[in-house]
């Protein structure tokens, strides 16, 4: 059965207040076409669980879609701090669940295994002080390592971007998978945008690239340059000029409203968005 959907249908049924996982890694494979569609559909009060990330959670926060977010790492690296995340944190306008690598890995792994919680080493940080729901004390026997328990992190919906898939939902990665696969195992629903849909024979020829077999995937969406302005597994680089434009536009409410008008509201479909960024072409490059 085909899992291929258009952008709008793929996100249909996501409720306000849902817990949304976001895959990728900082400026790599942020599922931006899906994120822009969430904004178009005016989703509200979302609870985000982003892998280390940049513009995907930031634009959702800026567009007013977010009530709470986990933060393992949200940064614009060489472009500075994440503008809307930073402002929301500094004005306490959203709730932030401070997480570190062990807590998100332990929590996702617990969810993937249907365990109530995971165990992580107590690193003696201030994280338990500001996030006591996540970092819970565990009785320690003499001579035992000091541990904390972290509740399972269940995702209602996970948004990912990868390079190619077939209609059945076999998803292939040309680059690193980061936390995508672990998150998929912890999610009730996995929606993946890919730069191109290919025949099943193509998938079979390089099946070592299929990091997400179809059993883990609920919908695939064809969205060439769907990670733009971030990179996609060697198919295209991050668009530094666009990222800089985003950061600049985020400087004031007016200029950010204009950015959203142009790139989200003003582009009714992903094809319209591609026109706005001058219709870049995917080259014929494959994983080889």
């Amino acid at each position, binding site marked *: 059965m085909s899992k291929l959907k258009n952008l709008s249908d793929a996100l249909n049924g996501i409720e306000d207040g849902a817990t949304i996982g976001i895959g990728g890694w900082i400026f790599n494979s942020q599922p931006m076409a899906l994120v822009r569609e969430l904004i178009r559909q005016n989703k509200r009060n979302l609870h985000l669980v982003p892998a280390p990330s940049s513009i995907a959670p930031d634009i959702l926060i800026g567009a007013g879609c977010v009530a709470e977010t986990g933060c393992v790492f949200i940064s614009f690296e060489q472009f500075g701090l994440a503008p809307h995340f*930073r402002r929301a944190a500094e004005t306490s306008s959203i709730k932030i669940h401070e997480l570190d690598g062990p807590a998100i890995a332990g929590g996702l792994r617990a969810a993937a295994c249907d365990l109530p919680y995971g165990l992580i*080493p107590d*690193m003696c940080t201030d994280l338990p002080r500001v996030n006591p729901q996540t970092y819970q004390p565990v009785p320690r026997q003499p001579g035992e390592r000091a541990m904390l328990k972290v509740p399972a992190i269940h995702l209602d919906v996970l948004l990912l971007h990868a390079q190619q898939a077939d209609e059945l939902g076999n998803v292939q990665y040309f680059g690193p998978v980061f936390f995508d696969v672990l998150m998929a195992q912890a999610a009730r629903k996995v929606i993946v945008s890919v730069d191109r849909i290919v025949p099943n024979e193509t998938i079979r020829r390089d099946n070592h690239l299929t990091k997400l077999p179809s059993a883990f995937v609920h919908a695939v969406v064809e969205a060439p340059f769907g990670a733009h302005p971030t990179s996609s597994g060697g198919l295209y680089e991050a668009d530094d000029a666009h990222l800089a434009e985003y950061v600049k536009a985020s400087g004031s409410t007016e200029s950010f409203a204009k950015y959203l008008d142009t790139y989200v509201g003003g582009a009714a479909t992903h094809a319209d968005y591609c026109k706005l960024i001058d219709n870049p072409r995917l080259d014929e490059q494959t994983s080889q």
Partner: protein
Amino acid sequence: MTGTDCSMAELHAVLLARDLLDGEKAIVGTNSDVQVAACNLARASHAPTLWWVSGPGGMVNCNEPVIRSTARTENIAWSEAMMDLPQMVDFIDWKIHFFDFAILGAIQIDRYGNINTVCVGPHDKPRLRGPGTVGISALTALARRFYVVMARHDRGSFPERVDFLNGPGFLDGGTSRTDRGLPEGGPKFVLSPLGVFDFEPISKRMRVKSLNPGVTLEQVQKQTGFELPVEGTPPITAMPTVDELKTLRASVDTSGVLRERRRA
């Protein structure tokens, strides 16, 4: 500005590389130009079997003589293994002393080498919201040692106590780190634009190891939020040799990513 023609980033890469040993295992974070350069410079000179892995991407011993973000797909073609993150978190986030060292940046570092990349001011209403913790808690807690590279050196970035502790150094000094159940380890050196700092063996207080050319003790003390013990007159930081810079520029950073940075 001194007579030594190298950038601060090149200086830091060389200083770190000198301290890395053959056969050691290391992890490098996402945007870590100095860290990549230090590891590959060590491999190109005295530590050919130093083993390093990209934290986010899983590429091992990438030896392209161009410095890129370690998350980039291009690095795969220059690497000798490609690991998946869910496997890597076993030894990144849980295992004690798998890594011999990590090299980290921070918004703040305090007198006992604890680091902060989360926020300045209270967490619920910060004056500055930083990017977050990612692997820093685990690497500072579990690696055999770590190094910290600070982009700035002032009383705000070197406070008496970090506003938020998300990377444990020596905690409250003395034996408090191991008393609280953390493995042996902690920070070895701190590199800043002003000099190199290490820690007293017993009290674990940060102290001056060397000053960069042209920097005075008074200046460093004035720009540090706590008292820095000094033993005698600190030496001047040993700047990169001609050979070190040649190897760095010809075999590690051929496109000059580090050279473009601020002059030392």
